[in-house]
């Protein structure tokens, strides 16, 4: 389908792949809605293992999309995640691209 529609292929390729990955998309969507969330909440919502989630969070942090703060609550280590301005902007662009893509393809079909 993409071969028949080069413009479609181009637009699909433009989507931010870092955010587009399903687990990271859930993480970024949650963080977009809140000020900050802890590791436990993100793990429950994504259904990922600790190691898997840590890996995804590391990628997002490396890209500058999220900020990770390690602190303590009642002597128990706590990992807090929040979206940076860059991450917020990236998600907004991604969401608008997706919305435009879906609406355009629905119109064409």
């Amino acid at each position, binding site marked *: 389908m993409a071969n028949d529609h080069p413009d479609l292929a181009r637009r699909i390729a433009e989507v931010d792949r870092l955010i587009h990955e399903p687990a990271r998309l859930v993480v970024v969507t949650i963080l977009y809605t809140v000020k900050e969330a802890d590791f*436990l909440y993100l793990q429950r919502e994504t259904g990922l293992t600790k190691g898997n989630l840590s890996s995804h969070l590391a990628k997002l942090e490396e890209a500058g999309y999220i900020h990770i703060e390690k602190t303590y609550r009642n002597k*128990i280590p706590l990992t807090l995640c929040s979206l940076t301005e860059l991450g917020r902007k990236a998600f907004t662009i991604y969401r608008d691209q997706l919305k435009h893509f879906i609406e355009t393809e629905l119109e064409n079909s």
Partner: protein
Amino acid sequence: MKDDLKKIQTRTTQYWFSDGLYELAFGALCLVLALYLLAQALLPKGTLLYSILVISFVLVMLGSGFLLTRLMNVFKARLTYPRTGYIAYPSKPRRTRWISVLLGMCIGALMGFVVVRNLISISLLPLVTGLVFAFVMLLVGLRTGLLRFPLIGFIALVIGGALSLAGIGDSLGLSIFYGSLGLTFALSGACTLRSYLHSTATPQESSNGE
């Protein structure tokens, strides 16, 4: 996929209400108000105690609200966050907060004006209060996607309507209204908390995080 993103955002908004603690706190606040109005109904007007009661209304309500909010946060930290995680919601923009405060004051002033000028019978106060609550609960239900809030709003409307029909509209009527509403919120909160505790695991002693 757009719908999935919306669902994730709605779930995140719902999380604040998932443990029922907010409803328990709000129910307690309604019960405080009910007790206050009952005291106002029972005390003879013109006495010193009555005057102190009237003057201290704002202090009592603000103090109770503050205390109950603190208690709710303490329970969330002990019960909810270790089980299912912690979220901090963004603060509402100052403009939105001021609009909410002004809107609340306008509604209060309008109701006060209507009562003082006898524009409507005082017996209709519980019905009008019930209508306002029902409207607010409907908005909360639409925003959170939680059906129990519009249901509580409907119950508030029924209680208000019943009291107005019975002609009990003064402080005693409002006391019964807020007492019933408080019990409704408390019951809803207790059921939600019970369901939450049953469906979530007790917190492990291992660390939260990587």
